[in-house]
């Protein structure tokens, strides 16, 4: 017989978890003691529980594994909420183990008690309170199973302290059967046939690929399919890397800050093949405007509730993306023919749109943020893992770093959480210790989890922080400039720290870069001389730079504001 605490650790070992991110406290002391007595599961001690969850989330995004976080009850749990909600919005598989007060104290307003199951319910795929040590192993098994299958998501397992002390035989179930949870895998063959038929008839087709392609590891299959069809491919913010951005068929990201060609092609397409994407408001703009144009939509998604939620779909296919794409490819035999002539004309039209060169940007005496991202792309050979925060810098990163591979672009798309960038960098580095990892951030966002510089020092995580410092909450300022007659209400950040000294005080390398000609040498130095160190690069950029193209909130996808319009 072993204790509940030891069972928790044994379960993690059985799940081949090599690292958990966490922070100790009263209710998880038994678990931390069990952790101490083994060395199979490594623990990363963060400086704030929010960062533990973000790091576990990024660990998952940048690998194919389930991220794990471990926190104490009460404030430990409430600090995780932003992290859990962020992962939930982007369907990231994650297990969060939370301590709870002893079962006999639950409901008594005990010290560090909170209703964890209640407080996390709206932002988890599922959660559990384990009241009996006999249920502990099977519950953790269920948690991993639920997190990783179907449409993935975070699962919370709340474990009262007395349960971690009780003794029990340990047996980890090999498989789990749940009558109430059986996500579909195979798509409906009849529907897939209909889809393939539509693809043959399409005259102005587009493939619209989202985060689901990355989550289901279907990037290669999608690329095969797209190449076979010779159709244009556009990616959502979450889908970047699911199709190589440098390929001719890629028309780039679509949506609010998408490319001119992607938005025009999406709007004017007669057949849209949507794969693992959900037509959200930042992607299609005003749904009524989008709906005005007649088109046929094929929608492949693992989650039936994503289908026909915001736009009516003609051919819904519920299933696991790689399985469905496989079936499609199988059906495209010798007799399969697309309309080459019409699609050729469509490509001419797209090239004309592409000719607008919508990502051109104004030159300046000062450093332009776009330029920094372009240089970063060159210096890293386009092969780095890029985490970002939320704001203008995030959009510049998405627009100017060309992701050719999946799981390289790590950002909070759904919830748009400022403060993820640094902990995301930690999670990526734990999952990919040899990789080049850069965090593109702003001076606003980075300060939301700046304390993690300390964690990075403790574990020697050589993150390269690219701080695009405009002294402004830039994205807020951009909206105020454009839609609030330049009334810059609370979007100016004063009293910024000296980031170089700050980084140095944590034991890292700090650099301040103020001239365009210094950008590239500084980046090179960071990735060669300081390869093994964390480098905080404070780029003082042109504070007036704005993100274009832009579809204003509530506008149609084709009603873009381009840089040249201003």
């Amino acid at each position, binding site marked *: 017989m072993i204790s509940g605490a030891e069972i928790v650790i044994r379960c993690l070992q059985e799940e081949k978890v090599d690292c958990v991110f966490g922070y100790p406290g009263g209710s998880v002391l038994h678990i931390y003691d069990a952790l101490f007595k083994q060395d199979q599961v490594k623990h990363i001690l963060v400086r704030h529980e929010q960062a533990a969850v973000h790091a576990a989330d990024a660990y998952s995004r940048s690998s194919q594994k389930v991220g794990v976080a471990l926190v104490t009850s009460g404030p430990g749990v409430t600090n995780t909420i932003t992290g859990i909600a962020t992962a939930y919005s982007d369907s990231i598989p994650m297990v969060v183990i939370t301590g709870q007060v002893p079962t006999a104290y639950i409901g008594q307003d005990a010290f560090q008690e909170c209703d964890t199951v209640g407080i996390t319910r709206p932002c988890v795929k599922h959660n559990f309170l384990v009241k009996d040590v006999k249920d502990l192993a099977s519950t953790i098994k269920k948690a991993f199973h639920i997190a990783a299958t179907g449409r993935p998501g975070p699962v919370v397992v709340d474990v009262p302290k007395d349960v971690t002390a009780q003794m029990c035989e340990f047996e980890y179930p090999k498989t789990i059967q749940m009558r*109430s949870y059986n996500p579909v895998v195979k798509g409906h063959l009849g529907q897939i046939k209909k889809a393939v038929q539509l693809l043959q008839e399409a005259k102005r087709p587009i493939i619209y690929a989202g985060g689901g392609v990355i989550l289901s590891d279907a990037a290669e299959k999608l690329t095969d399919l797209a190449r076979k069809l010779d159709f244009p491919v556009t990616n959502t913010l979450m889908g970047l890397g699911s199709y190589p951005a440098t390929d001719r068929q890629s028309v780039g990201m679509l949506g609010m800050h998408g490319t001119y060609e992607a938005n025009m092609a999406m709007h004017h397409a007669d057949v849209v093949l949507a794969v693992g994407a959900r037509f959200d408001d930042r992607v299609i703009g005003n749904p009524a405007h989008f709906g005005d144009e007649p088109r046929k939509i094929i929608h492949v998604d693992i989650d039936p509730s994503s289908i026909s939620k915001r736009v009516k779909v003609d051919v819904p296919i519920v299933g696991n993306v790689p399985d469905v794409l496989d079936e499609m490819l199988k059906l495209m035999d010798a007799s399969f023919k697309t309309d080459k002539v019409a699609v050729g004309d469509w490509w001419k039209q797209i090239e004309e749109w592409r000719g607008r060169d919508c990502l051109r940007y104004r030159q300046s005496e000062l450093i332009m943020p776009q330029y920094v991202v372009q240089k970063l792309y060159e210096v890293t050979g386009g092969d780095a893992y890029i985490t970002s925060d939320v704001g203008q810098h995030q959009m510049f990163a998405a627009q100017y770093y060309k992701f050719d591979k999946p799981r390289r672009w790590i950002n909070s798309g759904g919830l748009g959480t400022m403060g993820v960038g640094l902990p995301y960098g930690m999670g990526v580095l734990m999952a990919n210790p040899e990789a080049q990892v850069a965090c593109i951030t702003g001076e606003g966002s980075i300060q939301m989890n700046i304390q993690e510089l300390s964690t990075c020092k403790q574990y020697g995580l050589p993150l390269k922080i690219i701080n695009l410092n405009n002294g402004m909450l830039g994205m807020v300022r951009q909206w105020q400039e454009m839609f609030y007659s330049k009334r810059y209400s609370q979007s100016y950040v004063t009293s910024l720290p000296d980031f170089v000294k700050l980084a140095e005080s944590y034991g890292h390398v700090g650099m301040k870069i103020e001239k365009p000609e210094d950008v590239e040498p500084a980046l090179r130095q960071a990735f060669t001389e300081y390869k093994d160190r964390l480098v905080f690069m404070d780029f003082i950029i042109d504070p007036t730079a704005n993100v274009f193209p832009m579809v204003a909130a509530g506008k149609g996808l084709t009603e873009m504001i381009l840089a040249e319009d201003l």
Partner: protein
Amino acid sequence: MRHIISVLLENEAGALSRVAGLFSARGYNIESLTVAPTEDASLSRMTIVTRGSDEILEQITKQLNKLVDVVKVVDLSEAAHSERELMLIKVRATGKDREEMKRMADIFRGRVIDVTESTYVIELTGTGAKMDSFIAAIDAGLILETVRTGVCGIGRGDRILKV
């Protein structure tokens, strides 16, 4: 359109709040909700009366199915079904009203289940509309208290909701 949705779900702590939370978070309307264990004690059956367009109903059923504790969902109102509600109504029953209340209860096939010198408790089952008309038919000033269970429903004939 009014819909009656039947849900089979794991009889576990918190399952009800997952359903209730889903409806409030997504802004779906709940006219009534009833829940109790089935003949298989590990399963509960819930009946939800809601209103919404076809698109909203499609989302409601999909979102319900997505809840990990939910085993099965059907929209009973899509085909022939029976629905019943139980109401207990306490009324003043003195003087000439005493006779009249008994008569009304009989007309509506209700039963008087509690009697004091001045009050009756009348039990009534039927559709929601029947309860409404009973309430409308008696003198409002005589109603002391009402309690209704909300609708529960079942498909007719071979339509069976089971695991």
